[in-house]
Protein backbone atom coordinates (compact mmCIF):
# COMPACT_ATOMS: atom_id res chain seq x y z
CA UNK A 1 0.00 0.00 0.00
CA UNK A 2 1.31 3.44 -0.88
CA UNK A 3 1.52 6.30 1.61
CA UNK A 4 -1.81 8.07 1.91
CA UNK A 5 -1.91 11.61 0.49
CA UNK A 6 -3.75 12.77 3.59
CA UNK A 7 -4.30 11.31 7.02
CA UNK A 8 -6.68 13.06 9.40
CA UNK A 9 -6.50 11.41 12.77
CA UNK A 10 -8.98 12.09 15.58
CA UNK A 11 -9.01 15.76 14.69
CA UNK A 12 -10.89 18.10 17.04
CA UNK A 13 -11.14 21.83 17.09
CA UNK A 14 -12.88 23.83 19.77
CA UNK A 15 -13.39 27.54 19.74
CA UNK A 16 -14.09 29.58 22.83
CA UNK A 17 -16.50 32.23 21.74
CA UNK A 18 -15.81 35.75 22.84
CA UNK A 19 -18.43 37.65 24.75
CA UNK A 20 -19.21 41.24 23.86
CA UNK A 21 -16.20 43.56 23.92
CA UNK A 22 -15.49 45.11 27.31
CA UNK A 23 -17.07 48.53 27.47
CA UNK A 24 -14.95 50.08 30.17
CA UNK A 25 -11.38 49.91 31.29
CA UNK A 26 -12.45 48.34 34.59
CA UNK A 27 -14.35 45.68 32.74
CA UNK A 28 -11.35 44.79 30.62
CA UNK A 29 -9.18 44.66 33.73
CA UNK A 30 -11.62 42.34 35.42
CA UNK A 31 -11.61 40.14 32.36
CA UNK A 32 -7.84 40.12 32.28
CA UNK A 33 -7.67 38.70 35.79
CA UNK A 34 -10.57 36.31 35.61
CA UNK A 35 -9.54 32.85 34.53
CA UNK A 36 -12.99 31.78 33.40
CA UNK A 37 -13.39 31.31 29.71
CA UNK A 38 -16.89 31.47 28.27
CA UNK A 39 -18.32 28.26 29.73
CA UNK A 40 -19.18 26.30 26.62
CA UNK A 41 -16.70 25.84 23.80
CA UNK A 42 -17.99 25.65 20.28
CA UNK A 43 -17.07 22.16 19.16
CA UNK A 44 -16.37 22.91 15.55
CA UNK A 45 -14.85 19.49 14.86
CA UNK A 46 -15.06 16.40 17.06
CA UNK A 47 -12.76 13.46 16.53
CA UNK A 48 -12.79 13.44 12.77
CA UNK A 49 -10.70 10.69 11.20
CA UNK A 50 -10.21 9.65 7.58
CA UNK A 51 -7.50 8.90 5.05
CA UNK A 52 -7.26 9.85 1.44
CA UNK A 53 -5.21 7.72 -0.94
CA UNK A 54 -3.12 9.38 -3.64
CA UNK A 55 -5.27 9.89 -6.72
CA UNK A 56 -8.47 9.69 -4.76
CA UNK A 57 -10.91 12.56 -4.84
CA UNK A 58 -12.90 13.29 -1.77
CA UNK A 59 -15.98 15.44 -1.51
CA UNK A 60 -16.95 17.06 1.76
CA UNK A 61 -20.58 18.04 2.22
CA UNK A 62 -22.61 19.40 5.07
CA UNK A 63 -24.71 22.36 6.10
CA UNK A 64 -23.29 25.77 6.88
CA UNK A 65 -21.44 25.58 10.16
CA UNK A 66 -20.96 21.82 9.97
CA UNK A 67 -17.19 22.28 10.25
CA UNK A 68 -16.20 21.89 6.58
CA UNK A 69 -14.15 25.06 6.39
CA UNK A 70 -12.56 24.46 9.79
CA UNK A 71 -11.51 21.05 8.55
CA UNK A 72 -9.96 22.44 5.37
CA UNK A 73 -8.17 25.19 7.28
CA UNK A 74 -6.63 22.70 9.67
CA UNK A 75 -5.59 20.49 6.77
CA UNK A 76 -3.86 23.53 5.30
CA UNK A 77 -2.01 24.25 8.51
CA UNK A 78 -4.04 27.35 9.36
CA UNK A 79 -4.57 27.19 13.09
CA UNK A 80 -3.77 24.49 15.56
CA UNK A 81 -5.97 21.46 16.27
CA UNK A 82 -7.36 21.18 19.81
CA UNK A 83 -6.41 17.52 19.55
CA UNK A 84 -5.57 15.04 16.86
CA UNK A 85 -3.34 15.49 13.86
CA UNK A 86 -3.15 16.03 10.14
CA UNK A 87 -0.48 14.56 7.89
CA UNK A 88 -0.13 15.52 4.27
CA UNK A 89 2.20 14.25 1.60
CA UNK A 90 3.05 16.18 -1.51
CA UNK A 91 2.67 19.74 -2.66
CA UNK A 92 -0.65 21.25 -1.78
CA UNK A 93 -2.49 24.06 -3.50
CA UNK A 94 -5.62 25.40 -1.89
CA UNK A 95 -8.38 27.79 -2.82
CA UNK A 96 -9.94 28.50 0.55
CA UNK A 97 -11.38 31.95 0.74
CA UNK A 98 -12.09 34.56 -1.82
CA UNK A 99 -9.13 36.89 -2.22
CA UNK A 100 -7.14 35.22 0.55
CA UNK A 101 -3.50 35.56 -0.25
CA UNK A 102 -3.90 38.70 -2.32
CA UNK A 103 -3.03 42.21 -1.26
CA UNK A 104 -5.61 44.79 -2.36
CA UNK A 105 -3.12 47.59 -3.02
CA UNK A 106 -0.77 45.60 -5.20
CA UNK A 107 -1.29 44.93 -8.88
CA UNK A 108 -2.45 41.62 -10.26
CA UNK A 109 1.08 41.07 -11.54
CA UNK A 110 2.70 41.62 -8.12
CA UNK A 111 0.06 39.50 -6.40
CA UNK A 112 0.41 36.67 -8.88
CA UNK A 113 4.18 36.64 -8.47
CA UNK A 114 4.17 36.62 -4.67
CA UNK A 115 1.27 34.20 -4.47
CA UNK A 116 2.87 31.64 -6.79
CA UNK A 117 6.20 31.97 -5.01
CA UNK A 118 4.65 31.55 -1.58
CA UNK A 119 2.72 28.52 -2.85
CA UNK A 120 6.02 26.78 -3.40
CA UNK A 121 7.23 27.66 -6.89
CA UNK A 122 10.79 28.82 -7.45
CA UNK A 123 11.33 32.21 -9.07
CA UNK A 124 12.32 30.72 -12.42
CA UNK A 125 9.23 28.52 -12.44
CA UNK A 126 7.00 31.51 -11.75
CA UNK A 127 8.60 33.45 -14.59
CA UNK A 128 8.19 30.50 -16.96
CA UNK A 129 4.51 30.04 -16.10
CA UNK A 130 3.56 33.69 -15.70
CA UNK A 131 2.03 34.29 -19.14
CA UNK A 132 0.20 31.00 -19.08
CA UNK A 133 -1.35 31.83 -15.69
CA UNK A 134 -2.48 35.26 -16.90
CA UNK A 135 -3.93 33.73 -20.05
CA UNK A 136 -5.80 31.10 -18.08
CA UNK A 137 -7.20 33.74 -15.72
CA UNK A 138 -8.20 35.87 -18.74
CA UNK A 139 -6.73 38.92 -17.05
CA UNK A 140 -4.19 40.12 -19.61
CA UNK A 141 -5.71 43.61 -19.84
CA UNK A 142 -6.03 44.06 -16.09
CA UNK A 143 -2.87 42.45 -14.80
CA UNK A 144 -1.23 45.80 -13.99
CA UNK A 145 -4.23 47.18 -12.12
CA UNK A 146 -4.39 47.07 -8.31
CA UNK A 147 -6.28 44.09 -6.98
CA UNK A 148 -8.90 46.18 -5.18
CA UNK A 149 -10.28 47.14 -8.60
CA UNK A 150 -10.90 43.45 -9.41
CA UNK A 151 -14.38 41.98 -9.18
CA UNK A 152 -14.95 38.88 -7.05
CA UNK A 153 -14.98 36.80 -10.21
CA UNK A 154 -11.66 38.18 -11.37
CA UNK A 155 -10.07 37.42 -7.99
CA UNK A 156 -11.27 33.84 -8.10
CA UNK A 157 -9.97 33.49 -11.63
CA UNK A 158 -6.54 34.66 -10.57
CA UNK A 159 -6.61 32.49 -7.44
CA UNK A 160 -7.63 29.38 -9.33
CA UNK A 161 -5.17 30.03 -12.15
CA UNK A 162 -2.29 30.29 -9.68
CA UNK A 163 -3.41 27.24 -7.68
CA UNK A 164 -3.70 24.98 -10.71
CA UNK A 165 -0.37 26.14 -12.17
CA UNK A 166 1.51 25.49 -8.96
CA UNK A 167 1.32 21.90 -10.15
CA UNK A 168 0.13 20.45 -6.84
CA UNK A 169 -0.29 16.80 -6.06
CA UNK A 170 -3.15 17.68 -3.72
CA UNK A 171 -5.69 20.33 -4.71
CA UNK A 172 -8.11 21.69 -2.13
CA UNK A 173 -11.08 23.71 -3.33
CA UNK A 174 -13.64 25.31 -1.03
CA UNK A 175 -16.69 26.20 -3.08
CA UNK A 176 -15.02 29.45 -4.13
CA UNK A 177 -15.55 28.55 -7.75
CA UNK A 178 -19.22 29.36 -7.48
CA UNK A 179 -18.28 33.02 -7.91
CA UNK A 180 -16.83 32.69 -11.40
CA UNK A 181 -19.05 33.07 -14.47
CA UNK A 182 -20.36 30.05 -16.35
CA UNK A 183 -17.64 29.82 -18.98
CA UNK A 184 -14.86 30.17 -16.44
CA UNK A 185 -16.49 27.60 -14.19
CA UNK A 186 -16.55 25.18 -17.09
CA UNK A 187 -12.90 25.87 -17.74
CA UNK A 188 -12.05 25.18 -14.11
CA UNK A 189 -14.13 22.04 -14.07
CA UNK A 190 -12.30 20.83 -17.17
CA UNK A 191 -9.04 21.55 -15.46
CA UNK A 192 -10.14 19.66 -12.34
CA UNK A 193 -11.20 16.73 -14.52
CA UNK A 194 -7.77 16.80 -16.11
CA UNK A 195 -6.15 16.99 -12.73
CA UNK A 196 -8.11 13.95 -11.61
CA UNK A 197 -7.18 11.95 -14.67
CA UNK A 198 -3.54 12.63 -13.89
CA UNK A 199 -4.13 10.65 -10.66
CA UNK A 200 -3.78 13.61 -8.38
CA UNK A 201 -5.63 14.02 -5.12
CA UNK A 202 -8.60 16.34 -4.88
CA UNK A 203 -10.52 17.66 -1.89
CA UNK A 204 -13.68 19.43 -2.84
CA UNK A 205 -16.09 21.20 -0.52
CA UNK A 206 -19.29 22.10 -2.26
CA UNK A 207 -23.01 22.60 -1.90
CA UNK A 208 -23.43 21.55 -5.51
CA UNK A 209 -24.18 17.84 -5.23
CA UNK A 210 -23.93 17.25 -8.96
CA UNK A 211 -20.39 18.65 -8.95
CA UNK A 212 -19.51 16.42 -6.01
CA UNK A 213 -20.93 13.39 -7.80
CA UNK A 214 -19.10 14.31 -10.98
CA UNK A 215 -15.67 14.77 -9.45
CA UNK A 216 -15.52 12.73 -6.30
CA UNK A 217 -15.13 9.00 -5.81
CA UNK A 218 -15.87 9.26 -2.17
CA UNK A 219 -17.68 11.74 0.03
CA UNK A 220 -17.74 12.62 3.70
CA UNK A 221 -20.81 14.17 5.22
CA UNK A 222 -20.09 16.39 8.19
CA UNK A 223 -22.71 17.48 10.66
CA UNK A 224 -22.04 19.44 13.84
CA UNK A 225 -18.36 18.69 13.52
CA UNK A 226 -18.78 14.95 13.23
CA UNK A 227 -18.55 12.55 10.33
CA UNK A 228 -22.07 11.16 9.92
CA UNK A 229 -21.37 9.28 6.72
CA UNK A 230 -18.31 8.29 4.72
CA UNK A 231 -18.75 6.34 1.53
CA UNK A 232 -19.19 6.43 -2.24
CA UNK A 233 -20.07 9.92 -3.46
CA UNK A 234 -23.30 8.74 -5.10
CA UNK A 235 -24.63 7.17 -1.90
CA UNK A 236 -23.58 9.92 0.52
CA UNK A 237 -24.79 12.84 -1.59
CA UNK A 238 -28.20 11.18 -2.11
CA UNK A 239 -28.53 10.53 1.60
CA UNK A 240 -27.54 14.11 2.34
CA UNK A 241 -30.03 15.46 -0.17
CA UNK A 242 -32.91 13.41 1.20
CA UNK A 243 -32.01 14.42 4.73
CA UNK A 244 -32.02 18.03 3.63
CA UNK A 245 -35.49 17.57 2.18
CA UNK A 246 -36.86 15.91 5.31
CA UNK A 247 -35.44 18.79 7.27
CA UNK A 248 -37.27 21.28 5.14
CA UNK A 249 -40.42 19.19 5.44
CA UNK A 250 -40.14 19.52 9.20
CA UNK A 251 -39.91 15.79 9.89
CA UNK A 252 -38.67 14.63 13.25
CA UNK A 253 -34.97 14.57 12.58
CA UNK A 254 -32.86 15.78 15.51
CA UNK A 255 -31.78 18.89 13.62
CA UNK A 256 -35.37 19.76 12.84
CA UNK A 257 -36.21 19.68 16.51
CA UNK A 258 -33.38 22.03 17.28
CA UNK A 259 -34.52 24.34 14.56
CA UNK A 260 -38.09 24.31 15.80
CA UNK A 261 -36.88 25.10 19.25
CA UNK A 262 -34.92 27.99 17.89
CA UNK A 263 -37.94 29.34 16.10
CA UNK A 264 -40.05 28.92 19.22
CA UNK A 265 -37.55 31.12 21.04
Amino acid at each position, binding site marked *: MSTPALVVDNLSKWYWLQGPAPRTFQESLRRLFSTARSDQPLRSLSKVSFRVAPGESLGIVGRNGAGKSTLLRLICGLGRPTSGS*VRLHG*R*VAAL*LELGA*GFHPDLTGR*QNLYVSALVSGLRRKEVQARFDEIVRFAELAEFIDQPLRTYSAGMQVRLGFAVAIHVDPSVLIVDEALAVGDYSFQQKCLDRIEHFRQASKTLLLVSHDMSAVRRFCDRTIWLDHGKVVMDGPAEVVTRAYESDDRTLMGGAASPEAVTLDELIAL
Partner: protein
Amino acid sequence: MINAAKNTPGSPSHRLAYYWEVVQALIGRDFAMRYKGSTLGLLWAVLSPLAMAAILYVVFTRIVPLGIPHYSTYVFTGLLPWTWFSGSVLTGAASLLSNRDLVRKPFFAKPVLPVVVVGTHFLLYMLALPVLFGSLLVEGLAPTATLLLLPILWAVQALLTLAVTMLVAALSVIVPDMRHLLEIVLILWFYLTPIFYDVRLLPAETARYFVLNPLAVIIKSHRDVSIAGLAPDWLALGITTATALIVFVLAYAVFRLFDDVFVEEL
Protein backbone atom coordinates in the same frame (compact mmCIF):
# COMPACT_ATOMS: atom_id res chain seq x y z
CA MET B 1 1.64 18.29 16.09
CA ILE B 2 0.64 19.27 12.64
CA ASN B 3 3.02 18.08 10.01
CA ALA B 4 2.67 21.00 7.66
CA ALA B 5 3.62 19.50 4.33
CA LYS B 6 6.44 21.63 3.14
CA ASN B 7 5.54 22.77 -0.29
CA THR B 8 9.12 22.82 -1.41
CA PRO B 9 10.68 19.44 -1.11
CA GLY B 10 14.40 18.99 -1.34
CA SER B 11 17.56 19.39 0.65
CA PRO B 12 17.96 22.02 3.38
CA SER B 13 20.15 24.11 1.08
CA HIS B 14 17.47 23.94 -1.59
CA ARG B 15 14.90 25.06 0.92
CA LEU B 16 17.11 27.89 2.10
CA ALA B 17 17.51 29.08 -1.49
CA TYR B 18 13.74 28.97 -1.86
CA TYR B 19 13.11 31.02 1.31
CA TRP B 20 15.74 33.49 0.19
CA GLU B 21 13.71 34.04 -2.99
CA VAL B 22 10.54 34.52 -0.94
CA VAL B 23 12.28 37.04 1.32
CA GLN B 24 13.62 38.94 -1.69
CA ALA B 25 10.22 39.05 -3.35
CA LEU B 26 8.56 40.29 -0.16
CA ILE B 27 11.21 42.95 0.42
CA GLY B 28 10.60 44.11 -3.14
CA ARG B 29 6.90 44.26 -2.39
CA ASP B 30 7.58 46.21 0.83
CA PHE B 31 9.49 48.82 -1.15
CA ALA B 32 6.78 48.96 -3.80
CA MET B 33 4.17 49.73 -1.13
CA ARG B 34 6.32 52.06 0.93
CA TYR B 35 6.90 54.55 -1.84
CA LYS B 36 3.64 54.10 -3.70
CA GLY B 37 2.17 57.50 -4.52
CA SER B 38 5.22 59.39 -3.24
CA THR B 39 6.89 62.03 -5.43
CA LEU B 40 10.39 61.73 -4.04
CA GLY B 41 10.06 57.98 -3.54
CA LEU B 42 13.27 56.22 -2.64
CA LEU B 43 14.98 59.56 -2.01
CA TRP B 44 13.20 59.60 1.35
CA ALA B 45 15.46 56.78 2.50
CA VAL B 46 18.23 59.40 2.47
CA LEU B 47 16.19 62.49 3.25
CA SER B 48 14.57 61.37 6.49
CA PRO B 49 17.75 60.37 8.35
CA LEU B 50 19.45 63.44 6.89
CA ALA B 51 16.74 65.72 8.25
CA MET B 52 16.79 64.02 11.64
CA ALA B 53 20.57 64.32 11.80
CA ALA B 54 20.38 68.00 10.79
CA ILE B 55 17.97 68.67 13.65
CA LEU B 56 20.20 66.93 16.20
CA TYR B 57 23.22 68.73 14.74
CA VAL B 58 21.68 72.18 15.10
CA VAL B 59 20.32 71.50 18.58
CA PHE B 60 23.51 70.03 20.01
CA THR B 61 26.07 72.29 18.39
CA ARG B 62 24.21 75.63 18.41
CA ILE B 63 21.52 75.52 21.09
CA VAL B 64 22.96 73.15 23.69
CA PRO B 65 26.55 72.66 22.49
CA LEU B 66 27.95 69.34 23.66
CA GLY B 67 31.43 69.97 22.29
CA ILE B 68 31.74 66.59 20.59
CA PRO B 69 34.26 66.70 17.70
CA HIS B 70 33.21 65.70 14.15
CA TYR B 71 29.66 66.02 15.34
CA SER B 72 27.87 65.41 12.05
CA THR B 73 29.70 62.11 11.53
CA TYR B 74 29.18 61.34 15.18
CA VAL B 75 25.42 61.77 14.89
CA PHE B 76 25.20 59.75 11.67
CA THR B 77 27.11 56.81 13.11
CA GLY B 78 24.57 56.73 15.91
CA LEU B 79 21.42 57.63 14.08
CA LEU B 80 21.67 55.27 11.09
CA PRO B 81 21.99 52.04 13.11
CA TRP B 82 19.34 53.31 15.50
CA THR B 83 16.92 54.01 12.64
CA TRP B 84 17.49 50.54 11.25
CA PHE B 85 16.71 49.05 14.67
CA SER B 86 13.75 51.19 15.73
CA GLY B 87 12.19 51.21 12.25
CA SER B 88 12.31 47.41 12.14
CA VAL B 89 10.89 46.99 15.62
CA LEU B 90 8.05 49.43 15.06
CA THR B 91 7.06 48.06 11.64
CA GLY B 92 7.73 44.52 12.76
CA ALA B 93 5.28 44.80 15.63
CA ALA B 94 2.50 44.87 13.06
CA SER B 95 4.08 42.40 10.66
CA LEU B 96 1.69 39.53 11.39
CA LEU B 97 -1.31 41.84 11.54
CA SER B 98 -0.57 43.82 8.40
CA ASN B 99 0.20 40.81 6.24
CA ARG B 100 -3.11 39.07 6.61
CA ASP B 101 -2.99 38.03 3.00
CA LEU B 102 0.19 36.02 3.55
CA VAL B 103 -0.57 34.75 7.02
CA ARG B 104 -3.73 33.16 5.65
CA LYS B 105 -1.90 31.34 2.89
CA PRO B 106 -1.64 27.63 3.54
CA PHE B 107 1.80 26.64 4.82
CA PHE B 108 3.19 30.15 4.68
CA ALA B 109 6.32 30.20 6.86
CA LYS B 110 5.45 33.08 9.18
CA PRO B 111 8.97 33.64 10.56
CA VAL B 112 9.73 34.98 7.08
CA LEU B 113 7.80 38.15 7.94
CA PRO B 114 10.13 39.58 10.63
CA VAL B 115 13.09 38.67 8.41
CA VAL B 116 11.53 40.70 5.60
CA VAL B 117 11.00 43.70 7.90
CA VAL B 118 14.59 43.67 9.14
CA GLY B 119 15.83 43.18 5.56
CA THR B 120 13.79 46.10 4.26
CA HIS B 121 15.11 48.40 6.96
CA PHE B 122 18.65 47.19 6.39
CA LEU B 123 18.34 48.20 2.74
CA LEU B 124 17.07 51.61 3.83
CA TYR B 125 20.13 51.84 6.08
CA MET B 126 22.39 50.94 3.16
CA LEU B 127 20.76 53.58 0.99
CA ALA B 128 21.52 56.21 3.63
CA LEU B 129 25.07 55.03 4.18
CA PRO B 130 26.65 57.19 1.44
CA VAL B 131 25.63 60.20 3.54
CA LEU B 132 27.91 58.92 6.30
CA PHE B 133 30.84 58.61 3.91
CA GLY B 134 30.07 62.09 2.58
CA SER B 135 30.14 63.39 6.13
CA LEU B 136 33.48 61.68 6.81
CA LEU B 137 34.98 63.47 3.82
CA VAL B 138 33.46 66.85 4.64
CA GLU B 139 34.80 66.68 8.18
CA GLY B 140 38.24 65.77 6.89
CA LEU B 141 38.25 62.26 8.36
CA ALA B 142 40.13 59.96 6.02
CA PRO B 143 38.31 56.62 5.55
CA THR B 144 40.30 53.96 7.37
CA ALA B 145 40.79 50.25 6.79
CA THR B 146 38.74 49.52 9.91
CA LEU B 147 35.63 50.47 7.91
CA LEU B 148 35.97 46.98 6.43
CA LEU B 149 34.83 45.67 9.83
CA LEU B 150 31.38 47.21 9.35
CA PRO B 151 29.83 43.97 7.99
CA ILE B 152 30.59 42.31 11.34
CA LEU B 153 28.68 45.05 13.13
CA TRP B 154 25.82 44.65 10.65
CA ALA B 155 25.66 40.93 11.35
CA VAL B 156 25.47 41.46 15.11
CA GLN B 157 22.83 44.14 14.74
CA ALA B 158 20.82 42.08 12.25
CA LEU B 159 20.61 39.26 14.80
CA LEU B 160 19.63 41.59 17.63
CA THR B 161 17.10 43.49 15.52
CA LEU B 162 15.55 40.29 14.22
CA ALA B 163 15.26 38.90 17.73
CA VAL B 164 13.49 41.98 19.12
CA THR B 165 11.31 42.34 16.01
CA MET B 166 10.18 38.73 16.24
CA LEU B 167 9.38 39.12 19.91
CA VAL B 168 7.24 42.24 19.47
CA ALA B 169 5.53 40.77 16.38
CA ALA B 170 4.38 37.79 18.42
CA LEU B 171 3.44 39.82 21.49
CA SER B 172 1.40 42.25 19.38
CA VAL B 173 -0.94 39.41 18.59
CA ILE B 174 -1.90 38.95 22.24
CA VAL B 175 -1.31 42.46 23.62
CA PRO B 176 -3.67 44.78 21.77
CA ASP B 177 -1.96 47.99 22.90
CA MET B 178 1.50 46.82 21.99
CA ARG B 179 2.10 49.55 19.44
CA HIS B 180 1.37 52.34 21.89
CA LEU B 181 3.58 50.78 24.55
CA LEU B 182 6.31 50.23 22.01
CA GLU B 183 6.36 53.86 20.92
CA ILE B 184 7.05 54.89 24.50
CA VAL B 185 9.67 52.18 25.04
CA LEU B 186 11.46 53.19 21.85
CA ILE B 187 11.58 56.86 22.88
CA LEU B 188 13.07 55.82 26.20
CA TRP B 189 15.52 53.52 24.45
CA PHE B 190 16.51 56.35 22.10
CA TYR B 191 17.48 58.55 25.04
CA LEU B 192 19.25 55.72 26.85
CA THR B 193 21.42 55.09 23.79
CA PRO B 194 24.32 57.47 23.12
CA ILE B 195 23.07 58.58 19.71
CA PHE B 196 23.49 62.33 20.03
CA TYR B 197 25.50 62.43 23.26
CA ASP B 198 28.71 60.81 24.43
CA VAL B 199 28.84 58.47 27.41
CA ARG B 200 32.17 60.05 28.36
CA LEU B 201 30.29 63.25 29.22
CA LEU B 202 28.47 61.37 31.96
CA PRO B 203 29.61 60.60 35.49
CA ALA B 204 31.52 57.30 35.60
CA GLU B 205 28.99 55.56 37.85
CA THR B 206 26.23 56.26 35.30
CA ALA B 207 28.39 55.52 32.27
CA ARG B 208 29.24 51.98 33.27
CA TYR B 209 25.63 50.87 32.94
CA PHE B 210 25.69 51.51 29.20
CA VAL B 211 27.36 48.18 28.47
CA LEU B 212 23.99 46.67 29.36
CA ASN B 213 22.44 48.31 26.30
CA PRO B 214 23.38 46.21 23.26
CA LEU B 215 22.66 49.12 20.94
CA ALA B 216 25.03 51.38 22.85
CA VAL B 217 27.77 48.79 22.31
CA ILE B 218 26.96 48.48 18.59
CA ILE B 219 26.90 52.24 18.08
CA LYS B 220 30.16 52.71 19.97
CA SER B 221 31.69 50.05 17.71
CA HIS B 222 30.47 51.98 14.67
CA ARG B 223 32.24 55.06 15.96
CA ASP B 224 35.40 53.11 16.71
CA VAL B 225 35.65 51.76 13.18
CA SER B 226 34.41 54.85 11.30
CA ILE B 227 35.75 57.83 13.23
CA ALA B 228 38.59 56.62 15.45
CA GLY B 229 39.95 54.04 13.01
CA LEU B 230 40.11 51.47 15.81
CA ALA B 231 38.94 47.90 16.07
CA PRO B 232 35.78 47.56 18.15
CA ASP B 233 35.87 46.35 21.74
CA TRP B 234 35.65 42.65 20.90
CA LEU B 235 34.72 41.58 24.41
CA ALA B 236 31.76 43.97 24.62
CA LEU B 237 30.73 43.03 21.09
CA GLY B 238 30.97 39.34 21.94
CA ILE B 239 28.73 39.79 24.98
CA THR B 240 26.27 41.72 22.83
CA THR B 241 26.25 38.91 20.26
CA ALA B 242 25.61 36.35 22.99
CA THR B 243 22.78 38.50 24.37
CA ALA B 244 21.29 38.82 20.90
CA LEU B 245 21.48 35.07 20.44
CA ILE B 246 19.68 34.38 23.71
CA VAL B 247 16.96 36.91 22.93
CA PHE B 248 16.65 35.38 19.47
CA VAL B 249 16.09 31.85 20.76
CA LEU B 250 13.53 33.16 23.24
CA ALA B 251 11.83 35.31 20.63
CA TYR B 252 11.61 32.46 18.16
CA ALA B 253 9.94 30.26 20.75
CA VAL B 254 7.42 32.97 21.63
CA PHE B 255 6.78 33.66 17.96
CA ARG B 256 6.07 30.00 17.27
CA LEU B 257 3.77 29.90 20.27
CA PHE B 258 1.58 32.78 19.16
CA ASP B 259 1.78 32.97 15.38
CA ASP B 260 -1.16 30.58 15.07
CA VAL B 261 -3.35 32.42 17.54
CA PHE B 262 -3.62 35.20 15.05
CA VAL B 263 -4.73 32.99 12.20
CA GLU B 264 -7.60 31.79 14.35
CA GLU B 265 -8.66 35.25 15.43
CA LEU B 266 -9.53 36.18 11.88
